[in-house]
């Protein structure tokens, strides 16, 4: 049987020579993401801001105009209505109501009353008061910081610091550009997005570590090879793995985006972008960065690694 080769066996793509293009691209990506974040901001969901979100199934196809007229003069501020997946499912969003935690609950009761008769089923009711919103914001921030710190510690423990810097720059690049993507398309930024960001951080490092492992191995193997050539060789050697793993992950995500339903679509779309940019950054950013970080080469074998390999070989 002829096996499918996504990448030919002996590629020799000169990634390192094109590093300026990649760096310019990445710089532009990160800068525009930061600009978008600072000037356009994020479309924060009710998880973080507080507020009300209802997913309702209407009797028959939803008449958005009728629904809007019912909810618009309740004095609840800006009410947003949006078809959600099916023709008879509508997402109704209410901004945080002034008046603290109890005001949110009161507004839901009002909202539901105004929809009497047209709604067949309340599929989802999310009400978040300002207290919980603030707490969720803090927890999300803490989770992201703790994840990056934990990954940093791990990398620092397993590799020389130069590699750690390269990996973290690539990770920051992936996370920041994902945030930029959310800002650009005004996608709702909620708790699931934070989960996606953390998973992207994990995947980004995962991908970078595989290439770095090969760089380290080759640095011991080819003591005299110029670094750019050695880096190219390492990337090319691991290229088919990089591509195949990204592909299988993308296949799983593709199934989730297509068949997984509306509720997790934002999450899966973010993940797809993250896998894409994570693959790109470990090849085009993390490894070329090592050139500027003065990596030490020479015969420093890692004594800890030898016995582990022997055991694995038994």
């Amino acid at each position, binding site marked *: *049987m002829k*096996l499918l080769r996504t990448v030919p066996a002996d590629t020799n793509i000169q990634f390192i020579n094109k590093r300026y293009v990649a760096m310019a691209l990445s710089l532009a990506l990160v800068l525009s993401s930061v600009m978008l974040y600072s000037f356009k901001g994020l479309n924060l969901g009710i998880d973080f801001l507080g507020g009300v979100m209802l997913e309702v*199934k209407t009797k028959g196809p939803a008449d958005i105009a009728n629904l809007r007229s019912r909810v618009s003069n309740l004095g609840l501020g800006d009410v947003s209505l949006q078809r959600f997946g099916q023709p008879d499912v509508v997402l109704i969003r209410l901004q945080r109501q002034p008046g603290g*935690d*109890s005001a*949110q*609950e009161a507004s839901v*009761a009002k909202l*539901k009353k105004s929809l009497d008769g047209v709604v067949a089923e*309340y*599929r*989802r*009711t*999310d*009400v978040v*008061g300002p*207290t*919980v919103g603030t707490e*969720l914001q803090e*927890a999300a921030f*803490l*989770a992201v910081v703790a994840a990056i710190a*934990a*990954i940093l510690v*791990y*990398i620092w423990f397993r590799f020389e610091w130069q590699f750690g810097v390269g990996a973290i720059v690539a990770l920051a690049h992936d996370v920041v550009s994902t945030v930029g993507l959310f800002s650009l398309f005004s996608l709702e930024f909620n*708790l*699931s997005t934070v*989960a996606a960001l953390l*998973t992207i951080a*994990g*995947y980004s*490092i*995962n*991908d970078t*570590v*595989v290439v770095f*492992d090969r760089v380290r*191995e080759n640095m011991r193997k080819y003591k005299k090879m110029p670094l750019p050539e050695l880096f190219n060789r390492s990337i090319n050697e691991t290229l088919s*793995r990089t591509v*195949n*793993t990204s*592909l*299988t*992950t993308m*296949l*799983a*995500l*593709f*199934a*989730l985006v*297509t068949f*997984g*339903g509306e*509720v*997790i679509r934002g*999450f*899966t779309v973010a993940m797809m972008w993250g896998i894409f940019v994570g693959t790109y950054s470990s090849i085009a950013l993390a490894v070329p960065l090592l050139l500027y970080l003065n990596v030490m080469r020479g015969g420093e074998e890692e004594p800890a690694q030898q016995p582990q*390999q022997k055991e694995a*070989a038994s």
Partner: protein
Amino acid sequence: MLDFPTWKRALVIGVCLFGIIYAIPNFLPVQWLQALPSWVPVKRMNLGLDLRGGAHLLLQVDTKGYLKELMENTYVASIRAAVNAEKTHASVDVVGNTLVIQVRDPAKLDAVRSRIRQENPELTVETTGNNKLRATLSETGMRNRISTLVQQSISVIRRRVDEMGTTEPLIQRQGSDRILVQVPGLQDTERLKRIIGKTAKMTFHMVDMDCNPAGQIPVTDMVVQSDPGTRGGKPYPYCIEKRIRLTGQNLVDAQPTFQDGQPVVSFRFDSRGARMFGEITRTNVGRLFAIVLDNKVITAPRIEEPILGGSGIIRGSFTAESAKDLAILLRAGALPASMIYLEERSVGPGLGQDSIDAGKLASLIGMVLVVVFMFLAYGLFGLMADIALIFNVALILALLSVLQATLTLPGIAGIALTIGMAVDANVLIFERMREEVRNGRSPMNATDAGYSRALTTIIDSNLTTLIAGALLFVFGSGPIKGFGVTLTIGIVSSMFTAIMVTRFMIVLWLRRKRPQALPI
């Protein structure tokens, strides 16, 4: 490479069997499981509220209001009594959780102080001037009070939710003053909120029939609005005596019923309540008697004749449902403090089932795509990786069932994502084997080198994702926590299946075939 020690074989076979046996109950109809003998594992995955539908409410006990009331009612009264007992006069002011006491006669200061202390051990009493005392409720005293308060609130809420006829509600304390209520499968969350949120403090007063609610109100009276009820109408002011004749605490039963075609609530007093009720009705025939619930008059009937049996009927403006709800509230008793809703997340049964279906379909299709890809890319070895992948999924389901971890929709996404990422270890190993074959190694050697050299990379790369997964579990809430759970379990089990299970299969195959070249 070829020797795969017996204990490793036993481990691989044992773990795979475990996975299959404990995953199977999730695919069998519940009726079958109930018919099985008790030693057969029948635990299924615990579905989160976003999948089975239901309500999730986070409530905060209004401790501030409670403490204020505690200070104003309990302690002020006790201090007044102490001051009277020492035969002097004093002013008592409440400032937050402190009481400022100004005693008229400075000579009695010490005596008043020690008496207050003696009677209220949880108060710290200090002298702050020659006739001034400051009494503060100590941290521990406050904590104890609040702890009891939350405990009492939980039991009242539990009684109310149970009375609604729900199944498996979870009512749990969170932090110091919060209560989490989760009711699976509930349709009408607005009703749940109405029932939980009502303080349901019921008192019985006499109506002052000589007093005009719009005019001068005697100090012994107060004006309370009527409850327009669920049938609409305008509130109407009543002038009632401040004196509480009876409270809801004396009730032993309340039931919704009908009288003249109208929904009403019948109630029954305990023996003490019945005696007092009999006395009141006997001495006040012809007067109006107000039943007040949460500072609203729900009804004020005229006492036609003495009621000595200790039971009666509340005839408000009820609907069948609101009569039923009031009966539930009266049976469960009053909440000792009011509740503030912090968060609500409810999912209707329709969306829950849709999510399960969508999650199953997406996982299945994702799996088929990955399985096909692996076979196309790595042939026979890819097929072995696919078999390992199936064991991996079984193992994830088995672990979720055994640990009774909660499976949420993001959790299903985590499983689907793990399916895509789990084969990474095999991709790493097989790619390495290809390289080693290209470098001219024999099949045995190449296989051996492939596994051993890829191993450190596999561990390095998986551990980073594991860190992210574990943090999601720690910091995440609700559904997101579910994602952290499946991601973490998935990574751990995939490391086992992708390394050990495929290796076991490849060793068996190499031994039988002794191939000249690897099919990779």
